[in-house]
């Protein structure tokens, strides 16, 4: 315990600045030594200085904490830290009394290890999954007006995407944003690039491409901010990060996941030659269909015309058959038919003779036969 003297002004106790700082510093010194996690920024090391300074930054909301560590201790760790690297710092809070600066006095420093990364990644994955961030999947446009491409500035991934897209669909239009895809600033750089290309006019789909890398290299693709930016992107995003295992979270949140940048390019544009061939086939089918319909209709019309042509003749035949039927019956009943069988009709004047009583010897009669007739005189009657 240090003694902090106050000056008495009547009944008011007033402390000097030094006393106040000393008092606070003393109080802070009683807090325990703990581990704090953050990203190293603004690292300043000067061989003439006793301490090394850096700012520890919270990657999720940007909160900052000044850290000092004895230079000899820092050098002994041989960490070769660079800005943006994630670390665990072991230390306790401290007030630099001369300036009233609050900071952390580090006793030790550890680079965030693979295991830590994996554990952090898994926690983040669980959290985002619980929020449903990975569930929304939008279909890709059949033919995007323009394609946004976010990729490293000299990456083979960029070349693969461009070559494949222009080979498949020569008329394709691209908006390319070259950016960091690796290292401590990659996540924010990719977010900016993603926003930029997705906001460009007529961009209907964005490809985020990187040609693989180590687990650490691909860490930015699992950055929570980038994952959320992909989820919030106004157009569908194709994630094309070549990797063997350890799926980065960008793959999970993207609307479509491609195994390689080349595969992504194949997904975003159709093959113009194949499309053209398909169109030709469709047109041929259409033409055949039209011709077929025409033929069918013509045949139907021909049949109708044949029926039309035949209808009057058919009607005539029926009428003729009916007429012949009537005529047949008429002839069957005809007296002529009877005469033809050998009978004869005998008339006097115009009267038909039905009985010999009507006749007397010498009477003139007219005899009609099946064929012709003759006049005769009655010789006797019976």
């Amino acid at each position, binding site marked *: 315990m240090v003694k902090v003297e106050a000056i008495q002004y009547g009944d008011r106790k007033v402390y000097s600045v030094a006393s106040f700082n000393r008092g606070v510093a003393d109080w802070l010194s009683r807090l325990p030594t703990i581990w704090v996690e953050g990203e190293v920024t603004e690292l300043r090391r000067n061989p003439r200085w006793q301490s090394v300074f850096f700012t520890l930054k919270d990657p999720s909301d940007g909160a900052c904490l000044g850290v000092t560590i004895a230079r000899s201790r820092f050098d002994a760790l041989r960490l070769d830290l660079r800005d943006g690297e994630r670390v665990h710092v072991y230390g306790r809070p401290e007030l630099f009394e001369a300036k009233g600066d609050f900071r952390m006095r580090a006793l030790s420093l550890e680079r965030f290890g693979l295991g830590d990364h994996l554990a952090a990644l898994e926690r983040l994955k669980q959290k985002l999954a619980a929020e449903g961030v990975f569930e929304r999947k939008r279909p890709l446009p059949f033919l995007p007006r323009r394609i946004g491409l976010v990729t490293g500035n000299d990456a083979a991934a960029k070349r693969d995407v461009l070559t494949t897209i222009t080979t498949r669909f020569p008329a394709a239009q691209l908006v390319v944003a070259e950016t960091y895809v690796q290292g401590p600033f990659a996540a924010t750089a990719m977010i900016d690039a993603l926003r930029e290309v997705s906001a460009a006019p007529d961009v209907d789909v964005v490809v985020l491409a990187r040609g693989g890398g180590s687990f650490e290299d691909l860490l930015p693709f699992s950055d929570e901010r980038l994952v959320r930016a992909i989820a919030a992107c106004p157009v569908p995003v194709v994630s094309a990060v070549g990797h063997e295992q350890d799926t980065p979270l960008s793959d999970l949140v993207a609307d479509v996941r491609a195994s390689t940048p080349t595969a992504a390019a194949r997904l975003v544009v159709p093959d113009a030659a194949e499309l053209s061939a398909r169109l030709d086939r469709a047109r041929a089918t259409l033409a055949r269909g039209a011709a077929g319909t025409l033929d069918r209709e013509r045949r139907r019309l021909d049949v109708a015309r044949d029926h039309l*042509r035949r209808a*009057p*003749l058919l009607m*005539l035949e029926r*009428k*003729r058959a*009916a*007429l012949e039927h*009537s*005529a047949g*019956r*008429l002839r069957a*009943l*005809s*007296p*002529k038919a009877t005469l033809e069988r050998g009978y004869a*009709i005998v008339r006097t004047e115009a009267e*038909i003779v039905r009985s010999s009583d009507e006749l007397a010897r010498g009477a003139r009669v007219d005899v009609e036969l099946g064929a012709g007739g003759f006049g005769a005189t009655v010789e006797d009657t019976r």
Partner: protein
Amino acid sequence: MSEATFEKAQRELETIVQRLESGDASLDEAITLWERGEELYRVCSEKLDAAHGRIEELARRVEAVKP
């Protein structure tokens, strides 16, 4: 006679046939009916022939303008 339609002539012919079939016509009447029937048959037959000819003529004309 020639003014009568085919249908009218045929109906008359049919009436005559039925009258003859009934058997109650006198011989003179039967002969008159028969002669009338034969005449009607001739008229009807001529009308059918004429109609047939016209239909075939029409069909030939249609066939001739066919592309």
